[in-house]
């Protein structure tokens, strides 16, 4: 398969801050590629450089054979960008916004009108198309924000955390629309810090942390890197897990990366079933009530944990 996007040793610095630290990857025509990483990993910066908004500090990327350093206009015609933050005119209606942005992408006349109507239909806002954006709910605004990026039928679309801060229902709708766009032939670069989203959508995933691409491949390739590790998740009451318990868990044979959050403690281990009985014994000894215990096959979260020693979300 052809690569629509090839990134070579891309670096972007903001003054002394290295936001993107020499990453390389490629995206094949027709795939959904996710960049998965925690806050501040460099996802938005990567998209900004690839979409020719910011000039790279070093390195280059080719999109459809054009260089982001030299052929910005050709690239801009080919790509669609859905920014992480809403980028709409609040005092214009959804229809006016779509008309305006469509005309910026060289659509005009009848063609523009048809596309605007199609997009309104697609994002389910035909009824409210003439209301000002500022009267919309957050989820509706997000839908318009996405619709704007689709007007000119881009070959490659960059979606930067499009589901942040919205309700479950809108999120579901957005994930489904990503899949249907992809089914229509659009190549997608999707960034997220939700492991589940990357898992559900992507053909391939790049894991990014502190500006470095620390892992790259299909989901099974990535989980293979972790080896046969599994995760044992202990659900406990908030105050029922004293430090001592965690410290004792860490020194159990076979326990790696013990991570504690409010209600759960996760233990990375090569053999979850062998670790189970010492864990239960320990909790009995310390008189700690376990609400439930899960055994999880390795997932992207495990991969991230394995590679960085930290959880994807804090």
């Amino acid at each position, binding site marked *: 398969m052809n690569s629509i996007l090839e990134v070579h040793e891309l670096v972007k610095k903001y003054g002394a801050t290295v936001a993107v630290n020499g990453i390389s990857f490629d995206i094949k025509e027709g795939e959904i590629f996710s960049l998965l990483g925690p806050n501040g990993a460099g996802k938005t910066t990567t998209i900004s450089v690839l979409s020719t908004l910011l000039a790279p500090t070093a390195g280059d990327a080719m999109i459809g054979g054009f260089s982001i350093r030299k052929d910005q206009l050709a690239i801009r015609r080919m790509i669609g960008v859905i920014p992480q933050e809403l980028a709409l*005119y609040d005092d214009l209606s959804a229809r006016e916004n779509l008309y305006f942005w469509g005309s910026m992408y060289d659509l005009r006349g009848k063609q523009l009108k048809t596309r605007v109507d199609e997009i309104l239909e697609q994002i389910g806002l035909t009824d409210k198309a003439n209301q000002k954006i500022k009267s919309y709910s957050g989820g509706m605004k997000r839908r318009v924000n996405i619709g704007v990026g689709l007007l000119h039928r881009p070959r490659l679309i960059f979606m930067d955390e499009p589901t942040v801060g919205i309700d479950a229902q809108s999120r579901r709708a957005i994930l489904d629309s990503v899949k249907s766009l992809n089914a229509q032939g659009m190549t997608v670069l999707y960034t997220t810090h939700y492991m589940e989203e990357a898992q559900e959508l992507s053909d391939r995933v790049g894991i990014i942390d502190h500006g470095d691409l620390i892992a790259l491949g299909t989901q099974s390739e990535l989980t293979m890197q972790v080896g046969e590790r599994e995760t044992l998740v202990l659900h406990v009451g908030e105050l029922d897990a004293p430090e001592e318990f965690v410290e004792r868990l860490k020194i159990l044979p076979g326990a790696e990366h013990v991570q504690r959050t409010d209600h759960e403690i996760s233990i990375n281990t090569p053999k979850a079933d062998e670790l189970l009985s010492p864990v239960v014994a320990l909790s009995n000894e310390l008189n700690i009530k376990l609400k439930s215990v899960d055994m999880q096959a390795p997932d992207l979260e495990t991969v991230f944990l394995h590679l960085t020693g930290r959880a994807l979300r804090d």
Partner: protein
Amino acid sequence: MNKILGIGWKEVKLAFRDRAGLILMLLAPMLLTLGLGLVTGSFNRSSSPVSGIPVVLVNLDRAQIGNAIVDTFASAELKDLMDPMLVSDAASARKMVDDDKAAAALIIPVGFTDSIIPNTSTGATGPLEQIELYANPTRTTSASVVKTILEGFLGQVEVGRISAETSVAALIDQGLIQPGDAAQLGAQIGMQQGVGLTANPAIALEQSTTSGSAAGFNALAYMAPGMALMFLMYTVSYGGRSILYEKQHGTLPRLMVAPLTTSQILGGKILGVYLTGVIQMLILIGASAVLFDLNWGNPLSILLVVLSAVFAAVGWGSLIVAFAKTPSQVANIGSAMMLTFGILGGSFFSVESMPGWYTILSRITPNAWGISSFSTLAAGGTLLDILPAVFALLAMGGVLFIISVVVIRRRGLFQE
């Protein structure tokens, strides 16, 4: 080009949908014109926007009417408005105007009284004599005031002579024509443009340096252009703010990743602010013409002044954007500039009465050039009279744009 227009039009739509913006763009200047106009116009001449106008009088007539004109200009009623100086010969009076020491010179020729008042024994009047009004072309407003007062006075004389057939000299001697009345009448005449000496064929004025005719002095007529130009500065800084606002709100980055060049975006933004300013000015001019019954003068020339004044103002707006970093900085600098330029440029009181350095400094403001052009036009001036100001405004805008573009390029408005 289509996209530049698209961005420009979007800008105009947004500007006219912003309610707070509309208040400042349209309502505030109208209310201030009315408020300040009423205050200065009806209460007290001393707080009039024009005061202490230096005028040189040469009384070669030395008879009743000539003396009465001199008395009028020196009268207590006109004390604050006029600052008359008497000289004995016409040449030195003209020189004072040429040297910008006076707004106008009034030269009352020998035999002026005789040409109007019939000789008591023969009943015949002498040959027609004309008063010469030698006006300072850089002080059109003041010269217009002088002219209006003179016309008012002469109008009284004429009325007295024709209708009552009594000796005007007697009227003046008996105090029936008060110098103050003449001034009052002058102001009234100013409001109804064009009523002037055309009605008094026997008395003619000769104007040496400017071609402005009927004077248009009244407070509203002075305030309306002043306020319009001052709030034009608000509009251009609002426009400047919008570019930084768009940067913060992500629409500018979004434009940057659309197939557009930086110049197209910048061009569209500037066009939008420019159109907004032009529309604002035209609305204000139209509304004040209708509501306050003001005559602004020749519409095409007015349009030319508007187009060039807005150009210069947008130049200042883009300079602010070039140096400011945040929308609130632009707003602050913009408000400061609006007020400074308003005061400096003569939006509140005429800069003609200020010291020379002030007048010179006022020329950096679009307000000063705009106000002088508008008052020239209102006084009946022609396209030719305002061309220098138009060129000055265009040059001002051009220079400011070049500076702004250089600074924006260097600072990189769009790159982080």
